[in-house]
C-alpha cells in the first residue's frame, strides 16, 4: 500500500490541478494579508475559502482522479494485491497532495502574518476537512461507476454541506425559536464537518461575541479546551468514517 501511495503521490504532485490549487491558495493567502490591514479579518476570509473552496476542489478532483485512473486500478488488481491496499493508497496520496497544496498555499502566509491559536485551528481543521472530503469523494466514486453521475453526486453533497445543511438548521432555529433548542443545535452541528470547523475558528475570534444567545452556548463549549478537543476528535471521527466507508465500499463493489 505504501509503495502504491508513494508513486501516486509523485504523480499527483506533478498534476496541473494540484499545482493550480497550490497557486490559487497561495494567491488568496498572500493576497488577503497584503490588501487587508487587520490580520483577524484576513483570517476570517481565509476561513471562508477553506470552508467553501477547499471541499469543492478536493471533492471534484479526487473523484475525477479516481475515475481517470480506472485502468491503473484494474492493472494493480490483476496482481495479487488486496483491494483495500489500492483504495487506501488513493486516499493517502490524494490527502497528502492536497495537504501540501493547502498548507503551503494558505498555511504559510497564515502562520507568517497571523501566528495565533485561531490560525493553528484553521490550519488543522482545514487539513482534517480535506481528508474528510477526499474520503467522501472516494466513497461516492467507488459506489457510482458512472463518472458523470459520480461528479454530479459530489457536487450535490458539497452544496448540502456548504449551504443546505445550514439553511435547515436556521429553519429549525426560526421555527422553534421559542424553545431552548441551543443544545440540540450544538449537537446537530457535529453532523456537518464544515460547521464544526467554522464554529471552532469563529469562537476563537471576536466575531463569536456577535452570535447572540446560541453563540453564548457555542462559546462556552467550543471556547473551552475540552470543547476544542471534542470538535477535533469529531473531525477525526469523520475522517475515519469516510476512510472506512470508501475501503468497505471498494472491497465489495464491481469494478
Amino acid at each position: 500500500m505504501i509503495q502504491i501511495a508513494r508513486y501516486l503521490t509523485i504523480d499527483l504532485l506533478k498534476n496541473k490541478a494540484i499545482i493550480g490549487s497550490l497557486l490559487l491558495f497561495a494567491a488568496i493567502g498572500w493576497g488577503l494579508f497584503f490588501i487587508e490591514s487587520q490580520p483577524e479579518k484576513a483570517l476570517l476570509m481565509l476561513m471562508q475559502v477553506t470552508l467553501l473552496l477547499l471541499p469543492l476542489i478536493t471533492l471534484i478532483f479526487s473523484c475525477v482522479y479516481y475515475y481517470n485512473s480506472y485502468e491503473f486500478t484494474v492493472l494493480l488488481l490483476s496482481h495479487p494485491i488486496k483491494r483495500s491496499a489500492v483504495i487506501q493508497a488513493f486516499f493517502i496520496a490524494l490527502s497528502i497532495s492536497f495537504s501540501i497544496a493547502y498548507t503551503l498555499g494558505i498555511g504559510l502566509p497564515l502562520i507568517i502574518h497571523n501566528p495565533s491559536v485561531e490560525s493553528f485551528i484553521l490550519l488543522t481543521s482545514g487539513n482534517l476537512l480535506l481528508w474528510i472530503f477526499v474520503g467522501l469523494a472516494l466513497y461516492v466514486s467507488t459506489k457510482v461507476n458512472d463518472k458523470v453521475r459520480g461528479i454530479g453526486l459530489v457536487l450535490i453533497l458539497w452544496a448540502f454541506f456548504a449551504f443546505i445543511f445550514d439553511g435547515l438548521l436556521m429553519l429549525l432555529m426560526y421555527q422553534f425559536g421559542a424553545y431552548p433548542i441551543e443544545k440540540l443545535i450544538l449537537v446537530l452541528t457535529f453532523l456537518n464537518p464544515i460547521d464544526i470547523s467554522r464554529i471552532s475558528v469563529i469562537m476563537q475570534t471576536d466575531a463569536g461575541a456577535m452570535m447572540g444567545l446560541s453563540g453564548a452556548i457555542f462559546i462556552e463549549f467550543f471556547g473551552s479546551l475540552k470543547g476544542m478537543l471534542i470538535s477535533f476528535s469529531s473531525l477525526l471521527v469523520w475522517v475515519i468514517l469516510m476512510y472506512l466507508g470508501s475501503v468497505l465500499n471498494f472491497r465489495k463493489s464491481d469494478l
Partner: protein
Amino acid sequence: MISIKNISKNFGKHEVLKSISLELEKGECVALIGPNGSGKTTLIKIILGLLYATEGTVTVNGEIVGKDVAYRSIIGYMPQMSRLPENMTVAQVFALLKRLRSDVETIDESVYKMFDIDGMKSKALGKLSGGMRQKVSAALAFMFSPEILILDEPTAALDPVSNENLKDKIKQEVADGKMVMITSHNLSDLDGIVSRVVYLMEGEVYFDKTIEELQASTGEERLNRMIVESLKPQTA
C-alpha cells in the same frame, strides 16, 4: 487451470452472463469472441475478481476466485490501457510493479526488450500513443512469467511488425504449456494462434469448438471464414 461453473452476472435487471460453464486447460490458447455487449469483458473481469458473479463459481488452479488474491500471482493480464495516472512515467510503473511483485524470481523481459520499452521509459503515461500504451501493457502482462495470460484486444493499436512479434511470443508461451485467453475483434490476428474458440452471444456460449472441429464443420482454413460459416443459420 480455469474452471467456470454456472456463472451468471446481472447488472440491475440486465442479465449480462447467463449460466456460463467452461473448462480451460493448460497449453490451450482460447479465443473469447463475440459481438459488443456479449459479455466477454464481464467474464474476464469475473475471472480476475474485479466483478462479483451473481451466481456460480470460478476456480483458478483449484482456488475459488473472490476468497483470496493469491491466485492472481499466476495470471498476467493485458488490459486496454486508456485511463492512467498521466504524470507517472513508464519507468515508474515498471518499478512499482516490480516492488509489489518482489517475490517473483523469474522475470521475463523478452517483451520489454522486444518493444524497446527502455526507449520510452522516461515518458509520462499521459504522453504515450495508443500503440505505446499497448506495448507497455503487453510487457507488464508477460513480465512475471505467469502460467495464465489474459489478453484483452492485444493487437488493437500495434503496428504490423510489433503485431507479428507479439503473436510469435504468444505462440511460444502456448508451446511452453501456458494457458492463453485472448479477446479480439480482429479475427485475422488470431489466425494460427488459437486452438479453441468460445463464441459468446447475449451472455451465453453460442459455440465452444476447437479449431479442428471448426475446420471440419465449415471446411474453411481461415478463422474469420470459419466463424462466419458457423454463425450462418442452419438450413435443413
